[in-house]
Structure formats: structure tokens, C-alpha cells
């Protein structure tokens, strides 16, 4: 469908192919694409770690941890990602003027700087996307854990594994395989959600495209360039997912 629209646009001379190709591989655009890929990938890593912790809290059987976990998911899944990004970038620096991080009982100071210097658009975008996506990942991982057959756990306990070993050697490897397709889905969503960071001035793909077209008015060409690179990133994420599924098949 995209190619049909593109073909129609070229035929109707709405889109200038020469301009499209010039910008497709221009340095600015490539930097934007790289920034989007790096942000999306790191956000997925952050989200996976948070998701695993929050999911384990939820299934721990401890009512306090489970309630904390449910609250986390409710808040971060229940508010728009864009609001969260704006919150980290604009609201946090007005709430806390200065960041002071030190290792307790020592003189080691890790960070001591004005908040605006610490929370760059990249940091705010990574925090916003990672924390919000963490809530979705928590639910996906929880579903994966619940899908592991109870008999597997019973057998692992019966050979004398501790609860931690059961989790580490049996539940997580099996749940991991179950959640690969859903995880791939989330990776693609995140790569595209990096475009939200354009609202806080992070120089990702969409921000660069809109910056360029606001000065040369080649709106169609530059949006097409951006769309092209999102499609490339999606193809990359799909390839990663397929490779993982082949490497770790469900048996």
C-alpha cells in the first residue's frame, strides 16, 4: 500500500524523487535514524530489566510486592507515553533544581550538577520510553511465566533446586522462549515510539525530517524519507525476532 501511494505521488509529481534520494542518505538523516535505533534498542533493554523485576514481584506471592507491581503497571501503562516524556524532560528539572548523587558514608560523589544538565533530551526520552515500556514488558513477561507448565517447576523442585534455581534454570528460559514474538512486537513499537522524542527536542529521525522540511517545504519527500528508515528499522527488528525464535525454539 505504501508503494502504491508512493507510485501515485511520483506520477502526479507530488513527490520529487531526486529530493527523496538526496535526503535518504544525507548525513543528518542517517544520524537521526541511528539515534532512533539506539534510543529504541536501549529503551527495550531498560524495559526488559524493569519488566522482569516487576513481573517477578507480581508473581512472588508477597502481597506488598504484588501490589507495588500492579500499581507500577497501572500508572505507566495508564498514561500517554508523550506525557511521560514531557514529564521527565520539562517537569522533573523544575521540581528538582540540582542532582546530587553520592555513595552513602563515603566522600564519593557520582553526580553533582544542575538537573537540566543531567536530563538531556536523550536521557529524558530513554527514561520515559524505558519506564513506560517496562509496564508493558512486565505484563508480557508475567504471562510468559504463567504459561510455563506447573509440572516443570514441580520436577525442578523435586530434584532439589532452590526457588531461585527453578527460576533461573527452568522458568525464565522457558518463559523467555514464549515471549519472543510479543517482545519483537514491542521492539517494533518502541522503534516507532522514538518519534515521540521529537517533542522534547531529541534529534531523532522525525525531528530531523520536520526540521528540514520546515525550511525547504519538501514535506512529502522528507516524511517519505523518515518512513523509509522506520521500515528499515522494523525489518531489522523482525530479523532479530526471527533469529531468536530459530535459536531458541519452543519445544
Amino acid at each position, binding site marked *: 500500500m505504501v508503494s502504491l501511494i508512493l507510485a501515485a505521488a511520483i506520477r502526479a509529481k507530488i513527490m520529487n524523487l531526486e529530493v527523496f534520494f538526496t535526503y535518504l542518505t544525507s548525513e543528518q538523516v542517517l544520524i537521526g535514524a541511528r539515534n532512533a535505533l539506539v534510543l529504541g534498542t536501549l529503551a527495550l533493554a531498560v524495559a526488559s530489566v524493569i519488566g522482569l523485576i516487576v513481573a517477578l514481584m507480581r508473581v512472588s506471592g508477597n502481597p506488598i510486592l504484588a501490589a507495588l507491581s500492579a500499581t507500577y503497571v497501572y500508572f505507566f501503562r495508564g498514561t500517554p507515553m508523550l506525557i511521560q516524556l514531557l514529564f521527565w524532560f520539562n517537569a522533573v528539572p523544575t521540581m528538582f533544581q540540582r542532582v546530587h548523587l553520592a555513595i552513602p558514608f563515603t566522600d564519593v560523589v557520582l553526580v553533582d550538577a544542575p538537573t537540566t544538565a543531567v536530563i538531556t533530551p536523550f536521557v529524558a526520552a530513554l527514561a520515559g520510553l524505558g519506564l513506560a515500556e517496562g509496564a508493558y514488558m512486565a505484563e508480557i513477561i508475567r504471562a510468559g511465566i504463567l504459561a510455563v507448565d506447573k509440572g516443570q517447576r514441580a*520436577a525442578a523442585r523435586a530434584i532439589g533446586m532452590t526457588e531461585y534455581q527453578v527460576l533461573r534454570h527452568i522458568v525464565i528460559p522457558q518463559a523467555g522462549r514464549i515471549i519472543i514474538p510479543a517482545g519483537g512486537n514491542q521492539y517494533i513499537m518502541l522503534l516507532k515510539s522514538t518519534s515521540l522524542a521529537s517533542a522534547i527536542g531529541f534529534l531523532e529521525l522525525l525531528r530531523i525530517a520536520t526540521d528540514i522540511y520546515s525550511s525547504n517545504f519538501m514535506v512529502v519527500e522528507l516524511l517519505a524519507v523518515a518512513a523509509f528508515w522506520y521500515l528499515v528499522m522494523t525489518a531489522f527488528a523482525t530479523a532479530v525476532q526471527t533469529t531468536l525464535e530459530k535459536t531458541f525454539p519452543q519445544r
Partner: protein
Amino acid sequence: MGTHVKAAAVVLDAVSKSYGKVEILKNVSLSITPGEVVTLLGPSGAGKSTLLRCVNHLETISAGRIYVHGKLIGYREEGDALHELSDREISAQRRSIGMVFQSFNLFRHMTVLQNVMSGPIHVLRQPKGQAEDLARELLAKVGLPDKADRYPSELSGGQQQRVAIARALALSPSVMLLDEPTSALDPELSQEVILTIRALAEQGYTMLIATHEMAIAKEFADRVIFMVHGEVVEDVPARTFFASPRHERSRQFVARHAG
């Protein structure tokens, strides 16, 4: 603790177990001597599986005490009070109790060899080479030396159950609990599993087997414990049970499975 508790392989002393208001086990007492093969018979819902799962503390009991080789299972006794052991202590106790499940429960993401090695490697922390030698030896023992690199899903049910037996044996358990080991298998596949269990019996393994398989009870069990509704109705030598069942329920049971 009486001397019989110290000498016995497994002792259940007035064990009860309920889920909410439903009593699964009612005041069950029994004792198994080392080397003995005991079958737990009884209709479905009699509490046979629950009893086995209590012996290695996969299920907690509501009252009574369970001992395996003189050690109180799942609890520490301080005065009159029982305190549940920590996760680490309970898993240490389970190492010497092998368990085989009706649904095999082989670890799906591991090969047959990895399944059999999982206990020695992760639980006993043996070196890999040593664990692999043992695993291959055990696979040969259960007649599956050529399936080491297969995944459980590629095996028949009977083969999976034999691997599960090898996995349990890898920890050199002092007691084997078998929970309906042939119930998920058709008669032909049951036969190969029964032969494997029989070989263990001949090697002197102490076994407690919940089963519907009369061949096990008749051909090589030393004793039959017959349960109905969570109670032990009869606890007699296997020969006696089949020749002259005393209770109404066991008479009906024997008559139905006479063929």
C-alpha cells in the same frame, strides 16, 4: 523418635492434609523399610498422589510428621512446635528423594542428556565431565543410550518416562517416589516403563509407587497399601492383598482388576 523411625526408609506418622475444608489425607500412618517396594493402590481421588507429594514436601501437611531415613521432612522441631524449613534446607532434603511424575515433566528446553545432568550439575555442583559420564551411564541403564541429544518432545511417552527415571536416579536417591508412572501411557509403552521399574526393584531401590497398574503390584511389589478417601484401608503383603482382600472396598477393587 522411636527406633523404627530411625531404621525405616519412610515413615508417615498420623499425617493429615486438607485443602480448606476438604480432607485429602486422614490420619495416615505407614512405614517402609529400606529396599522395600510398596504400591499405593486405590480409586482416583483416594489421595495417593497427594501422599507422595507430601513425602518430599511439594505439598505441606496439615498435621502429623513425615520422616525419610530418620530425618523429619520439611520442618524443624523445637520443643512441641514445628517450624517450616527454609527453601535451601528443603531443597537439600529433596536431593535424596527421587520423584517420577505421571506427566513425565522432563525439562522441555533441555536435551535428554541435559535433563539427566541437571540435578548433578545445578544441585550437586558436580563437574560437567563427571555429570555427563554418569548421565550417559544412566541412559544406557534405562535403554536409551542413543537418545542423549534428542529433545523430550521428540520421544515417545514411554521413552520420556524412562529419561525421567534416569534424571531422578542421577542424584543417587535413597527413596524413589513414583506417581502413577504409567497412567499416561498406552499398554505397550507402559510395559517398557514397568520393566525399567522392575529392574530398579531388583537392584534394591526403596520405592513407593502410586499406580493403577496391577502388573507392578502383583509381580514385584512387596506390599500393597490400599487407600480410599484419604484413609489407609489395608496395608498388607502384596500376595495377601490379591489372595484375600479383607475390606469390602478392596474386595471390589481386586475383583474389578482380576483379569
